[in-house]
């Protein structure tokens, strides 16, 4: 068990949540997470996370898919050389359809992998610091801090009008 503590504040209003994030930042809390029932650009802006790297997964998957498409069609046709409709054995125009479909298929599958890996969606249920109201109509801020910082965090959350505050060791 580490000595890190988690403090979770629950809010009704988006503007208050964003204001609280700014205050917590000013007070020196760096490790923050915001929960919301839907994606929101204001939260994204205030959290200022680096751009998602899912796009590289997508690009890699799509390129791999295209390469597989070329490989499949060219190698298999060469391995079983049968002349169809007087076309060359390796005939790119008809192969383009297969290459295109495999590009999409593998690009989509690797996007899924990118999503699962990067957002760490691998558990059957949320970990301790979560409130079921986040999937309904409430916003939340989770602060991860040392034991000494808990009191300061609680004070800021209370002064900002948090409806509920929860504590847990992480």
């Amino acid at each position, binding site marked *: 068990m580490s000595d890190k503590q988690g403090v979770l504040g629950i809010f009704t209003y988006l503007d*208050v949540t964003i204001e609280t994030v700014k205050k917590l930042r000013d007070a020196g809390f760096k490790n923050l*997470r915001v929960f919301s*029932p839907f994606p929101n650009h204001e939260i*994204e802006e205030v959290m200022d*996370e680096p751009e998602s790297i899912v796009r590289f997964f997508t690009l890699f998957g799509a390129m791999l898919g295209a390469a597989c498409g070329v490989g499949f069609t060219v190698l298999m046709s060469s*391995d079983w050389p049968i002349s*169809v409709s007087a076309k060359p054995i390796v005939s790119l125009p008809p192969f383009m359809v297969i290459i295109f479909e495999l590009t999409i298929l593998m*690009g989509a599958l690797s996007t899924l992998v990118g999503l699962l890996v990067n957002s760490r969606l691998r558990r059957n249920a949320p970990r301790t610091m979560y409130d*079921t109201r986040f999937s309904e109509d409430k916003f939340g801020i989770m602060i991860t801090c040392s034991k000494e910082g808990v009191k300061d965090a609680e004070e800021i959350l209370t002064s900002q009008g948090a409806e509920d505050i929860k504590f847990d060791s992480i």
Partner: protein
Amino acid sequence: MSEQNTLTYARVNDDIIRMLDKPTFKWWALFLPTLLFVGFGLFCFIYQVHYGLGVAGYRHPVFWGVYITDFVFWVGIAHSGTLISAILFLFRANFRMSIYRIAEGMTVFAVLTAGLFPIIHLGRPWNFYWLFPYPNQRELWVNFKSPLLWDVFAVSTYLTVSALFFFIGMIPDIAAIRDRVTEVPRKIIYSILSLGWKGSNWEWLHYTRAYLFFAAFATPLVLSVHSVVSWDFAMSNLPGWHTTIFAPYFVAGAIFSGLGMVITLTVPIRKIFHLEDYITLDNYDGMAKLIMLTSCIVGYAYGIEFFMAWYSGSPAEWGQFYYRATGEYALFYWIMVVCNVVIPLPLWFKSVRRNIKILFIMSIFINIGMWFERFNIIVISLSRGFDPAAWGIYTPSWVEIGITVGSFAWFFMFFLIFLKTLPSVSITEMKELLPVPRKEAKT
């Protein structure tokens, strides 16, 4: 969306999760007959496997009949789901939000139905896996130059990507259900399906990007799949099939029929589950406009086909089209024209586009018209090829009709199960439509 002002975040959760309550008598009254028809379809298939493909109505020269018609019809139905969820997402068309989940579900179930038909159509259906390129003791590979193989890749990619898109879009909603239900088996199932979703900014960041990429992939995919299906026909040298307009003509027809099916499905659901605040008249208005557009494209294609046949100077081509409109199958041809071109014409009036009853009736005619469009293209072309000595008439047998009816039941069976197990309206996206709660008005 003025009607939605009475909605709150909590009410969205309540209303949509309430749809998953224990099935009512009405639900069972719909579900049990579908099982019965699925059973009958299965019986017909087993009968066909036992006695051979001769029990289908195939007669020389028509060896692609109702099964291939059904295949193309169901692939077409599958198209508007991805149109609504992916293309309209990229265009930020808000009217899609309340209906896209139903349309996506429809897509997945329609592809599942469509995928059965090429297998049913095989003389030895148990060998269907020969279509896939895998190392085998026969030391041969598939023919990548065949449009039928392109179909295998296109349809299986479409099924995979649309099922993934459907599932990914549902993760936050499944988490909302997980947080609400208390009974043990459901709680566990929804917990597993939600993948531990918490709605943190970190998750949303990756989720929204991934969703965007899925939409970007699904958009060209949806256009390619029905184009590939159309090339099954257009690549062969047969009057009525060998034409360059088939790809856009099929894609427009697919979107047209799919939207028709979305309306057929959503109107009763809206009424039964009291979703009037979610699926609004604006949504139907938007769909009706798309139906209008695609009906015009399809109508233009019907006309230009005749022009091209005449202008080509080919007696076989012109004879084929003249026969379509005046021959033994003329009734089916005119059913197609009336249902797909004439009946949607009143949609030019706003009052019609916002009249749910008229839209519902119209959507059923569109479904019928589009089924006959596929029948006409496939069967009439085959029955009158180049050589008059090889002309013939095809009539579907009871086995083919039984399997077709069974396929509709199969589709509705999945759909009814979906209505009671997964959120039919996107909880997350409906919330995005509502004003964000703020303590102080935004300046």
